[in-house]
């Protein structure tokens, strides 16, 4: 079976740096961090009070929310903002015809968690019955339904929920749908929200930092939770060429695995994580030697980073030190189910612009650290192939390989 090539032709985001790709990329390049004390709920009872929230000027903008179709749930609001930009950027839409059969795959972890808490509170207090709108928006599929309705997406649609690997997996799923000819175009990504139940949960596990996220630093003490959404408009290369679209990058392959080790802990040897990396490289039909840059999962927890180092070592061996690496999580927090989408956006922009943003706060001196961690200032480098890695609860591992668009018929230059 001939598989079709898939390219990214539109990008969009709302992040803790604000609205839009430009704000996101420029802040990343400058090495800024949006980590602050949480404002949206009272985090005073928790050991960590840090988070990376979408700015209040966006979150509280009722006119903007209304312009997005008035979603009843915040991750759907974020996703609509990101998707609007991605479709504008790709010069398609904003709504599709039935015949377009545009697909959509989103990923999320925390979507609707706040609504579930509202229903739970009323239930425990035997308060008033939840409204139909609240019940509707408490479904994890609400974000998908809202986006599919908004743009009239009539192709295959789905929602992935593999914890922190969700939206990397969603990108891979959408890639498959186009690659295998189920649809010609798809919106992929995901939105997630910073909610108290998730903050409280990670806080109770001592996974949250009290100072600053320092991925791959010897003195790292955890992450903080971020929020936002990332959207990538994907289409077949034939479709992009037929309409003269500008191409950011090519999706070359992805890999999934389960560590089958523990429900919350990463594997000790990194073997399960390495399987996902190897599968992504195999699917992309490139060797480990071809990877120039890794957007790491880089949560800055003691165990996760150590495992990720071992996984990278297992796949790339001594060549690891030649690979540039960074983590977006000290800049925008850990955006949970949306993290993979936001990190894929960053990776695509690295390929497009030939610059790797630095990782704030870290010295990159973790024990066994094997990658060339970009710190301080952005590093200019010609990046041909990049890998974005996501690992989550439940042993979920998802990695995606992206290639710089070379404008050629050959897949690899």
């Amino acid at each position, binding site marked *: *079976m001939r598989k079709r090539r898939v390219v990214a032709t539109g990008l969009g985001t709302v992040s803790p740096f604000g609205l839009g790709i430009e704000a996101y990329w420029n802040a990343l390049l400058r090495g800024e961090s949006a980590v602050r004390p949480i404002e949206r709920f009272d985090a005073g*009872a928790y050991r960590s009070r840090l988070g990376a929230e979408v700015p209040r000027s966006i979150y509280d903008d009722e006119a903007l929310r209304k312009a997005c179709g008035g979603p009843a749930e915040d991750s759907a609001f974020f996703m609509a903002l990101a998707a609007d930009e991605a479709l504008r950027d790709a010069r398609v839409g904003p709504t599709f*015809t*039935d015949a377009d*059969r545009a697909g959509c795959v989103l990923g999320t*972890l925390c979507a609707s*968690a706040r609504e*579930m*808490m509202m*229903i*739970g*509170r009323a*239930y*425990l207090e035997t308060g008033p019955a*939840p409204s139909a709108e609240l*019940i509707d928006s*408490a*479904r*994890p*599929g609400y974000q*998908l*339904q809202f986006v*599919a309705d908004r743009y*009239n997406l*009539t*192709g*295959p*649609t*789905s*929602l*992935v*929920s*593999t*914890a922190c690997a969700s939206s990397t997996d969603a990108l891979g799923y959408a890639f*498959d749908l186009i690659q*295998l000819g189920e649809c010609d175009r798809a919106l992929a990504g995901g939105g997630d929200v910073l909610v108290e*139940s*998730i903050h*409280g*949960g*990670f806080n*109770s*596990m001592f996974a949250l930092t009290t100072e600053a996220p320092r991925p791959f630093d010897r003195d790292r003490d955890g992450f903080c939770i971020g929020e936002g959404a990332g959207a990538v408009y994907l289409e077949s290369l034939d479709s992009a060429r037929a309409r003269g679209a500008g191409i950011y990058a090519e999706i070359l392959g992805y890999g*999934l*695995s*389960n*560590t*089958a*080790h*523990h*429900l*919350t802990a990463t594997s000790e040897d990194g073997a399960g994580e390495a*399987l996902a990396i190897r*599968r992504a490289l195999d*699917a992309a039909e490139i060797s480990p030697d071809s990877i120039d840059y890794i957007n790491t999962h880089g949560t800055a927890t003691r165990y996760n980073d150590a495992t990720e180092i071992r996984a990278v070592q297992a796949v790339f061996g001594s060549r690891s030190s030649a690979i540039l690496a960074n983590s977006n999580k000290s800049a925008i927090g850990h955006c949970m189910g949306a993290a993979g989408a936001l990190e894929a956006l960053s990776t695509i922009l690295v390929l497009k612009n030939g610059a790797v943003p630095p990782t704030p706060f870290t010295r990159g001196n973790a024990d066994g650290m094997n990658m060339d961690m970009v710190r301080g200032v952005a590093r200019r480098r010609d990046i041909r192939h990049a890998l974005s890695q996501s690992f*989550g*609860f*439940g*042993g*979920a591992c998802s990695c995606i390989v992206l290639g710089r668009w070379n404008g050629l018929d050959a897949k690899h230059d």
Partner: protein
Amino acid sequence: MTDVWITGLGVVGPHGLGIDAVLEAASAGKTAFTKWPESHAPPNASASVGAVGSFPKEKYFSERQLRQIDRVMAMSACAAGLALEDAALDVGAEGDRTATFFATSRAERTSMLRFTQPILEGKPRQLNPANFPWMARNIACGQIAVRFGLRGPSTTLASGSLAALEAVSRAYDFVRLGRVPIAVVGGAEILSKFALHMLRHDYGDDCFHSEPSFFGLRPGRLVPSEGACMLVLESAEHARARKAAPYARIDGWDAGRFGRGAWDEGLYGVWSRIPSKVGGARERIALLSVSSGGSDRAHERAETGALQRWADGVPSAARFCAPRSFAGEGECWTGLLQVALAAAALRARRVPPTWHLAEDAAEAVRARAGGGSLDGASALISGMEKNGRYSVLHLSGGVG
């Protein structure tokens, strides 16, 4: 590219364990519904639920392990174990090449309330970190992977009821493309006092009618249900090499979302097209399994209309079946049951009847919904949601 066979079925449901328990009970007219518990605020006197009794979780977990997992994890892993045993498959050294795909629509709700209760009661310092992971929708999938040592590709879909058929379709593609030779794929939902509280509001008026009502135009009562159903998919080569006895072959799938046109017409069009997409013919369809849950929600009206069109327009002897008529509205778990039941029916060449047929069901539809022997080798499993999303699988029997 390889053929993909269904070689194992594992069911933990209101009827008990295994697909045979469902088939036998359904054929005998036993719905396995019980009264909605008085303590759980029943919507009316006739309200009922499809609840799972005891199941052999001790076979798969120690007492200590059972204290560390929730009901959906235990039920799902048990169903996975039953499916692997049914397939006579010891994954063993093939763990790295076995995928785990999972679907759920609402399984996390009970554990989410349990974990967040201290926050809701103003005591956030009492949060129990041991319960936190249970909020993740993929935790049952992870538990299956841990329990059986499955390190192949793994994912959880949570788009709604249709996630069930989406998970099977995606697993099918992974096996078909040679990414893995084996996939354990399934889904689960559970009931609890809080889950029923939410479902009562989620289903709204559809909880308040006196009886379920299938294939008619009037509203009927939804029966919330719980359970877990897992399938083993294998490449034909892998299954042949170990002399496995397949239930059916998955031939292909189609999915999408209906836009602004008439949904019944659209669904009939999908049912008509998919056989030719996979190299079959609609006249050879022996079974059409639909996702109707017993009321008149938008997708149920569309299915009823599409069944009517099929009965009137397709020269085939296809029988119609709505497994939710005897298993209840179990969203992803009953979505998976649709697939399992169709696979088993193709092998047995018999299908149980649809119960609670509406008084106003069209005669042509009613005539095909009474169960009985199957004339033909293929089945369509159709799922739809009230928002217009649909997913359809095409299976064939007589393989192996």
